[in-house]
């Protein structure tokens, strides 16, 4: 108990802050911050597995998040029959061609000695394949995108409950990580960072511009929810009764029946949105707890010890007979898959998929700030980092506004400098993140909750 005191203290302070937001701003804001904190926590856990356990630097978090989001779309949206009839055949043909291409390359790789000739052969297969695929896909893609472009214009998905997409998102992200890992994991740390960053940009470019699959920048809206809708709740009896019971003290004071009814309606509308957010919180919290248990178990297992050995001294671990390359690939896939789950969760919560919103600042660098600030190598630290940084990211503007008003209290309202500062309040969050990262790196390089290895 005593040795975990700092963990408990840090988490209670964090919870206290969120509750303060609930009391002073509104419970709606507090809960939406809390939900995004949980999603961020899942992302940081993924990054922490790669960086903290194995020392692999992955700046492609954005790409895996987007793939998770794509999974949410492909799983939950109903299939669009018309589009399938219009161009489904061409797309399936292309899929076939891709599989044939990969098999052909594998065949060549297996059966021929490494030589210039083989390299050129593979290159020509890839180029010819791309051209053939483009020619086959072109009419199909055009036909699909022409089907009711204002509303659909894409193939749609499988029409399954969206929660399944959390698993599928993990599979998608893991699959991408497998390819990336095969290509890039041999690189030195900072090259790996750049390579993964650029690959994630390629993924985003594809998601943004392949309209037949993702609707591209036209966005997919109105995804199905795993939790009830506010509008339905507001007309459900048991929910109204619940709100009435909850607020009986407040309502009893009002004697006028009509006034009481309107007050109750207002409470029901507020309550329904809080209730929906609470449902999401419950779902996300379950995921976080399951992942936390699994990652903690992994950290203290022989496997976790091996990973740390590889991280701290690759050569020595290699000499002990550990397969460093294979383990690196494995942990790269696992971490990315967790990020994929977070991506699917994010889209589930928002109910919409906007490929244009995936930007490296928000989905790669911010997550890294979370991991570093929280404490790499320590799961509790990583989760805390997700909470603290996201909380600051959201609350930075109000804090900055307060500080500006405080320091310029003597200056008149019409002062140009003051007006300019107040106008640029949203950008103080970048300043805060940067300064926070620099200070932590300088004075507490292991993060708020440093890695602690107990040898039992």
């Amino acid at each position: 108990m005593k040795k975990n005191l700092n963990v408990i203290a840090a988490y209670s302070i964090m919870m206290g802050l969120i509750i303060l937001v609930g009391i002073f701003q509104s419970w709606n804001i507090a809960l939406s911050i809390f939900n995004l904190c949980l999603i961020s926590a899942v992302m940081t856990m993924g990054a922490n597995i790669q960086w903290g356990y194995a020392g692999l630097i992955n700046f492609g978090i954005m790409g895996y998040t987007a793939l998770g989001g794509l999974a949410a779309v492909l799983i939950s949206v109903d299939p669009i029959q018309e589009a399938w009839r219009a161009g489904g055949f061409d797309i399936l043909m292309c899929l076939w061609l891709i599989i044939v291409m990969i098999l052909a390359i594998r065949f060549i790789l297996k059966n021929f000695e490494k030589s210039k000739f083989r390299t050129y052969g593979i290159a020509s297969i890839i180029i010819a394949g791309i051209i053939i695929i483009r020619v086959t896909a072109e009419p199909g893609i055009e036909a699909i995108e022409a089907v009711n472009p204002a509303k659909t214009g894409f193939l749609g998905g499988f029409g399954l409950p969206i929660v399944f997409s959390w698993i599928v998102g993990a599979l998608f992200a893991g699959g991408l990580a497998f390819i990336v890992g095969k290509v890039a994991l041999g690189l030195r740390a900072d090259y790996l960072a750049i390579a993964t960053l650029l690959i994630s940009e390629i993924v985003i470019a594809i998601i943004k511009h392949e309209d037949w699959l993702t609707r591209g920048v036209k966005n997919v809206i109105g995804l199905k929810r795993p939790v009830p809708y506010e509008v339905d709740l507001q007309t459900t009896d048991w929910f109204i009764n619940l709100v009435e019971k909850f607020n009986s003290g407040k309502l009893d004071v009002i004697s006028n029946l009509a006034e009481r009814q309107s007050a109750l309606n207002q409470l029901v509308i507020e309550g329904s949105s809080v209730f929906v957010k609470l449902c999401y919180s419950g779902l996300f919290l379950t995921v976080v707890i399951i992942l936390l248990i699994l990652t903690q178990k992994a950290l203290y297992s022989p496997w976790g010890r091996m990973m740390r050995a590889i991280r701290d001294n690759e050569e020595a671990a290699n000499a002990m007979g550990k397969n460093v390359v294979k383990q690196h690939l494995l942990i790269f896939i696992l971490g990315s898959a967790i990020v994929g789950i977070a991506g699917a969760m994010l889209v589930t919560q928002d109910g919409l998929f906007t490929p244009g919103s995936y930007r490296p600042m928000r989905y790669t660098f911010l997550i890294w700030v979370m991991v570093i600030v929280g404490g790499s190598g320590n799961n509790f630290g990583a989760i805390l980092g997700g909470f603290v940084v996201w909380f600051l990211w959201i609350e930075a503007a109000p804090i900055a506004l307060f500080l500006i008003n405080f320091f310029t209290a003597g200056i008149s309202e019409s002062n140009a400098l003051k007006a300019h500062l107040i106008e640029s309040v949203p950008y103080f969050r970048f300043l805060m993140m940067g300064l926070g990262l620099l200070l932590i790196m300088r004075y507490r390089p292991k993060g708020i909750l440093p890695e602690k290895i107990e040898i039992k």
Partner: protein
Amino acid sequence: MDILNAIILLLNYIFIPALTYGSQLALGAIFVTLIYGILRFANFATGDMMSFGTMVTILFTWYFQSLGISLGILPTALLAIPFAIIFMILYMLSIDKFVFKYYRTNKSPPVQLAMVSIGVMFVTQAVVRIIIGPSDRRFFDGEKFIIKAREFKEMTGLNEGLALKSTQVLTIFVTVVLVSLLFWFLNKTKTGKSMKAYSDNEDLALLSGIDPKKIVMITWIIAGILATIGGALYGLDKSFKPFTYFNNMLPIFAAAIVGGIGNPFGAFLGGYVIAFSEIFLTYAYKKFFMYILPESMEPESLVQLLSTDYKFAVSFSILVIVLLYRPSGIFKGKVL
């Protein structure tokens, strides 16, 4: 005649834009490569440092414009750049003193320095946005075109026009001058040679009496010059927007690595490799083929290898291929 038309078409839509864009990338790539070669970390703040330099240039330009100073047909920004460079060098040196120096003296691993540079990136980005705001700004004044497309058509009687913007000529000219000066400095002067020696082998360089403090200072000074000029030229040619500058970091990295990171000449050429391949692969060649092929063979589709949406993806794919087959870059840089 048709052949001439085709050549002018390619010049106008591929060659000149690619040369301009390549020059802008090249300056940034040399910046990245110098920092990597001498300070030994990947500087993720590259794009934002360039945007900071551009911002200072813009502020000086506005100041000069308000004083009524202008350079006639040349943009006022040219006058502002030297002042911006001085300011930028001070900024670079203070960042080094307050942030990077600590890790350098502690001999932190490069990854940690890269992380620190992310912190610098956040702060610089915030400062730029707080001071000048995130919106699109044009600060070009003076004569826009050297040759207008219509005038060219009238002059030569060809179907295709050749438009030559003054910013394009300016960019290419300034880049060539600056890069020649830089290579002269690195290859011929004593300080430049000691920088190369320090980059090749730190211990040996220290042993032969090279002062590391001086080397680091000169590196930041050159970096400041490159960042300001590269950023300002890009801003003059297109427009200044902090977010675009942040995004430009990625093709710049690609150029530096493709050229062989740590090798300034490689970075210089890498910029052009990236720019040309981006534009070559995404240009629609339909009109070109219409000129050179007989009418019966004219293509019906756009004859575009990749849609322009994938412009960025092209450079990143090149990078991935280079990393796979020749990790040290086209011109051998530091071996991974």
